[in-house]
């Protein structure tokens, strides 16, 4: 069996999406022999670029041919028919070929100096410099956001869309920060985080709609007490229950690491969702739980009666008051998550998490109780997931297992990883970018113009497609996430950012 030695394969010989590598050779191995110095001949460069473009165009065409070139179409109740879209395949193949040609002649040209950086990148240095100002700036903007929305959209009612969007994004910021404790700090890859979100949401939904609980409080503290106060009383319960489930699920999987842990947590997440679907007598199955009482201003309901929020504080009744209040509740919850994480990182348990992430064996030999450390990470992360779940239930006022699919876990994980694991501002930025960006895709109705894609084109269909693509692209481009340098929590004299190349796992 004769194989050519690894180092003799020219970098351009395998087409289709080869990505320029800077520090790690493509096979992850040190090069065995230095490549002969490339003699730049103009003709051969252009020639090989053209060949590469043609080959990659043909490959793209071949890849897309079966599923884009043909489409199995339903015609009423009859058997499936076929429609053909070879033109579309040719267009895509052409786009790929032209892109490759342009890139080969410019960015990926052989012999071009690729800059390698030893220390933190320029972006990271900038982020480090801006870091002290970033957090206050982010929070002041977050506080001012609903008022800005009202001012810029001209009135309470027109701003509804923007405030709703803010709530939606902040929910994911909070979930990202919660998962960040487990994945970013403790280095435990959790693919079932949505289970704790579900536990929180169902805890609140079941308690607030439960007749016996309502009757109990009606008998002792007056009619209507439970409707007004249920969210505020259930919020801690949701968090505690979610943390409890975090411990229950965390305990058996403590011996597992890495990929295995990820799959087991995924299985747990799916089990919880399947139980929610099938335990109809408790959860009402797939139909979900509706008519959850709305949020109150600490006991004062948001309605048009004399007892309502507007009448009590001398305002004109507007349904937007509740939405804006919801915005500040989730902002406060997210801030709480951030604050607790920052404080915990400076305490022994937080440092133990980070040590555990970097090296579990070293951790154990230093006498750190890894079981307890992992469990606290699981429980703390789960608790914030539970809080977010309760908030989700009170905002939407309807819960069903549909909301807690694996896709949701993947989105939250993507936020944490793309943001740069462990970096709080990175996670917030990724949440705003991903969730806001996906939401913005709904607004691309100009693409429906006749000269672009026609009225049948629905941009929102492509949201998850683009999302998946972005996940792969960011991983290939910046495997350490957007904020990838590392800032130590403790330091001797001077706090210095450390390049991600020097750390084993996440970000500090």
């Amino acid at each position, binding site marked *: *069996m004769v*194989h050519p030695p*690894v180092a003799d*394969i020219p970098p351009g010989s395998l087409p*289709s*999406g*080869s990505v320029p*590598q800077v520090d*790690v050779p*493509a*096979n*992850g*191995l040190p090069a065995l022999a230095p490549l002969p110095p490339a003699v730049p001949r103009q003709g051969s460069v252009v020639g090989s670029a053209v060949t590469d473009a043609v080959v990659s165009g043909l*490959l793209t065409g071949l*890849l897309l041919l*079966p*599923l884009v070139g*043909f*489409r*199995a*179409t*339903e015609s009423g109740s009859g*058997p*499936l*028919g*076929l429609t053909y879209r070879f033109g579309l395949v040719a267009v895509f193949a052409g786009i790929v070929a032209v892109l490759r040609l342009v890139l080969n002649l410019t960015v990926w040209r052989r012999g071009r100096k690729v800059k390698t950086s030893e220390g933190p990148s320029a972006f990271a240095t900038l982020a480090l410099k801006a870091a002290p100002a970033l957090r206050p700036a982010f929070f002041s903007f977050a506080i001012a956001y609903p008022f800005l929305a009202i001012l810029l959209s001209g009135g309470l009612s027109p701003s509804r869309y923007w405030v709703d969007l803010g709530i939606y994004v902040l929910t994911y910021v909070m979930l990202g920060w919660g998962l960040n404790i487990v994945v970013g700090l403790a280095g435990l*890859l959790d693919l079932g985080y949505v289970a704790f979100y579900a536990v929180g949401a169902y805890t609140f939904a079941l308690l607030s709609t439960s007749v016996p609980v309502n009757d109990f409080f009606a008998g002792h503290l007056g009619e209507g007490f439970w409707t007004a106060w249920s969210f505020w009383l259930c919020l801690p319960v949701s968090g505690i229950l979610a943390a409890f489930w975090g411990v229950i699920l965390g305990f058996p*999987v403590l*011996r*597992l690491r*890495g*990929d*295995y842990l*990820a*799959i*087991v947590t995924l*299985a*747990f997440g*799916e*089990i919880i969702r*399947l*139980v929610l679907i*099938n335990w109809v007598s408790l959860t009402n199955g797939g139909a979900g739980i509706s008519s959850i009482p709305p949020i109150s201003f600490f006991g004062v309901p948001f309605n048009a009666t004399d007892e309502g929020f507007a009448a009590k504080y001398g305002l004109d009744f507007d349904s937007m008051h509740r939405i804006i209040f919801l915005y500040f509740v989730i902002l406060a919850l997210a801030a709480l998550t951030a604050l607790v994480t920052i404080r915990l990182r400076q305490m022994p348990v937080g440092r133990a998490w980070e040590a555990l992430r970097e090296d579990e*064996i070293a951790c154990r030999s230093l006498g750190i109780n890894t079981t307890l450390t992992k469990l606290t990470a699981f429980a703390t992360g789960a608790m914030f997931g539970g809080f977010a779940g309760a908030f989700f239930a009170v905002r939407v006022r309807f819960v069903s297992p549909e909301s807690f699919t*694996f896709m949701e876990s*993947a989105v939250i*994980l993507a936020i944490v*990883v793309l943001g740069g694991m462990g970096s709080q501002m990175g996670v917030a930025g990724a949440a705003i970018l991903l969730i806001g960006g996906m939401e913005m895709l709904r607004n691309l109705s100009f693409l429906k113009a006749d000269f672009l894609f026609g009225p049948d084109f629905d941009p929102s269909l*492509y949201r998850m*497609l683009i*999302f*998946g*693509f972005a*996940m*792969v692209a960011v*991983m*290939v481009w910046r*495997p*350490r996430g957007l904020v990838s340098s590392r800032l130590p929590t403790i330091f001797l004299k001077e706090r210095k950012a450390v390049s991600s190349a020097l750390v084993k*796992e996440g970000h500090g």
Partner: protein
Amino acid sequence: MEVFLQQLINGLTLGSIYGLIAIGYTMVFGIIGMVNFAHGDVFMVSAFIGLICVLLLTTVLGMSSIFLILAITLVVAMVFTGLVSWAIERVAYRPLRGSFRLAPMISAIGMSILLSNFVQVAQGPRNKPLPPMVPDVFVVMERNGYEVTLAYKQIIIMVVTATLLAGFWWLVQKTSLGRAQRACEQDRKMAALLGVNVDLTISLTFVIGAALAAVAGVMYLMYYGVVNFADGFVPGVKAFTAAVLGGIGSLPGAVLGGLLIGLIETLWSAYFSIEYKDVAAFSILVVTLIFLPQGLLGRPEVEKV
């Protein structure tokens, strides 16, 4: 007894499909130590390619011989799925080899989302039904009015699976590619130093895994007669469970695990509750990983400093 026998037949059929997918997981894990999260969606893509091919052969070319259609569909699905998997490895995983541990896993999750949504956009979100291809059944035994049947399609699935596994076993044990694969599995750097083309070997591992998943996809399409863009996730997780149960990295283990998972699932549905059959499969995954992490036929993992 009759019910048990019938479920045994159904379970073995389902288990063959899981086993074929599980091989892809176990091979990739063995050689580069990553869970190829997109493998379940590669399986779903292959079922769609099979669907298109069957439609093309029946409606456009007017073929009527079922066996010829199946044979051509199998080959076409294996070739195109292998190509898809090769491209995925090239684009999404190879640049991340040597990066930190979670990077390829997350890239794979992204790829899984990308594939299922690509199929949704390209082929539409609705179930794609096919008319039953091999409707005949064969009555094995009859007692008290209960017939135990063995459908011809079940026979086809078992025969095709067994044949392919035999061929695959020969490939891994006797050919130079198989030797290179096993060498890379043991020590990638050493294999490279000895002249094994590591990149090519890894690419071919992905292609072979995808080709076996494509067989599973066509068999799934023929067995159930319907496919949907979301059908990759659950069979994918179950096949991964099978790989773990059999001992990840072990090829006979993957097949054994697949058969066991298929049997457990059908027997659970028959005797306990059909609603919780997925819960049963996922619970097996959890229990195996906790109490028997090396699986039935795998070697225990030694932690090195």
